[in-house]
């Protein structure tokens, strides 16, 4: 080995040179092609049999606005019900008690295994099975009065959602290190309190992205409740076009509202994620 007082020759000095900008011909070509296609589609719609004035007029019509409010109310309530049921089912699923385990598994099996629209129709027509419902001796009512479109939609959507959410929650809870549960036990927390205070908050971090996904699905799934007369936005749009025959215009109106709502949800999800990420190394540096 030689002691090297100077650096070896033959490696030119690059410090004054810059990397040349490349022109990405293919990207430009692809972009141009896409613009042409989009323009063609836009032109087709502009010249098509669509009265755009109807679209803009009905976009903010009272019935439509009421419909989108009903859609959101139903989506939020049914999702809340779904998350509660899902969390309970997931906790039951992970409990050592075989009875609780199989009840939870049966719930998931039944409500994931049948179409949502069928479940909605069943809830709505519950009066055919049980003409009166209530607690014997205390309170009874005719099922047709109780099972309003609102309640039927809430039960149908929420209970169905819970069956899916339980799997998401279970995955989240399994993702938490077993040492966390042991540490919670070691300071004397009981099973349920350990779940609520230690395991679930950590599971939420994992669970929020798929739940956000499910919630977006829920917003759109509420449109199925139109079949049981729940006045959500699609149902109201349909009612309008039955009267004025502007079918496409009103479907576009409803579509715009769904898109708008879903676009607002994404940043909201980011906020939630940030909340539950506290304490962990930042994910979006």
């Amino acid at each position, binding site marked *: 080995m030689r002691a090297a007082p100077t650096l070896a020759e033959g490696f030119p000095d690059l410090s004054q040179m810059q990397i040349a900008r490349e022109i990405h011909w293919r990207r430009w070509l692809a972009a141009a092609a896409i613009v042409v296609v989009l323009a063609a589609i836009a032109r087709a719609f502009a010249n098509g049999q669509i009265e755009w004035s109807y679209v803009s007029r009905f976009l903010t019509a009272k019935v439509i606005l009421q419909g989108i409010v009903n859609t959101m109310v139903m989506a939020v309530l049914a999702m809340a019900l779904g998350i509660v049921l899902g969390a309970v089912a997931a906790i039951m699923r992970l409990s050592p008690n075989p009875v609780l385990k199989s009840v939870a598994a049966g719930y998931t099996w039944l409500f994931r295994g049948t179409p949502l629209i069928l479940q909605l129709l069943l809830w709505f027509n519950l009066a055919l099975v049980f003409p009166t419902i209530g607690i014997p001796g205390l309170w009874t009512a005719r099922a047709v009065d109780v099972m309003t479109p609102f309640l039927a939609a809430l039960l149908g959507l929420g209970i169905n959602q819970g069956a899916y959410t339980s799997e998401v929650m279970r995955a989240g809870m399994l993702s938490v290190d077993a040492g966390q549960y042991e*540490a919670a*036990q*070691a*300071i*004397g*927390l*009981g099973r349920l309190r350990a779940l609520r205070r230690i395991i679930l908050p950590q599971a939420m971090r994992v669970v929020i992205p798929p739940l956000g996904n499910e919630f977006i699905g829920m917003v759109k799934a509420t449109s199925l409740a139109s079949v049981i007369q729940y006045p959500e936005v699609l149902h109201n749009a349909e009612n309008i076009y039955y009267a004025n025959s502007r079918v496409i215009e009103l479907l576009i109106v409803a579509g715009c509202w769904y898109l708008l709502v879903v676009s607002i949800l994404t940043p909201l999800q980011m906020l939630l994620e940030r909340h539950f990420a*506290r*304490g962990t190394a930042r994910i979006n540096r």
Partner: protein
Amino acid sequence: MTKPLVAIRSVSKAFGEFQALRNVSLDVWPGEVLCLIGASGSGKTTLLRCINQLTVIDSGGIWLDGEMLGVREEGGKLRRLTDRQIARQRLKTGMVFQRFNLFPHKTALENITEGPVQVQGRNPGEVRAEAIELLRRVGLATKADSYPSQLSGGQQQRVAIARALAMKPMLMLFDEPTSALDPELVGEVLAVMKELAQSGMTMMVVTHELGFAREVADRVVYMDHGAIVESGRAADVLGAPREARTRAFLAAVI
């Protein structure tokens, strides 16, 4: 005459076919610091976990502060305690894990106050003041509001010790508290444990730090294949072991 704080009698535990503890009997006296040493898989962790009932023993019995753990006698039969009763018994022991197991979504201070407030139902203000005092004691007065991810391994383990102490346990269990740490962080955790030992806390410590055992332990227990092979004063077991297996183990570690 004083009684042992922990009395372990003929405890056995198997995982499937594998016998992790074989007929282990041991006393731990109030104020004593007992170090458990032994090869990997010899059952040291399992023994600690049986004492705070994270693992349920197959046979034998463990008494803590005169109370039988996990079961009670009724009409000549043993009946398992309820989860609630077991949780109450656990409050008498504090456990420090090899991998810290701090709650990552809670600050250092919240990790410490969780047990006293949630489990013991104590006044949050009072608990907070005590937690700050505990953090000062483990040298982390300035880290109260840091999350575990913002702390070094040694700092996390010291918070974990403070968290266990906050429950005012009579017995502290340490499972290789320094073996997940970089060498330069080991000293700060051992210093906290040494201070705790000098304050009179009864401690059972699974460790590979023979220097710590020699200096701090009153007694050293050597385990092999789920059984206690040798037990005695630290200086004797580490300096002049009687059993050939202990000698072989010590020769291999040093």
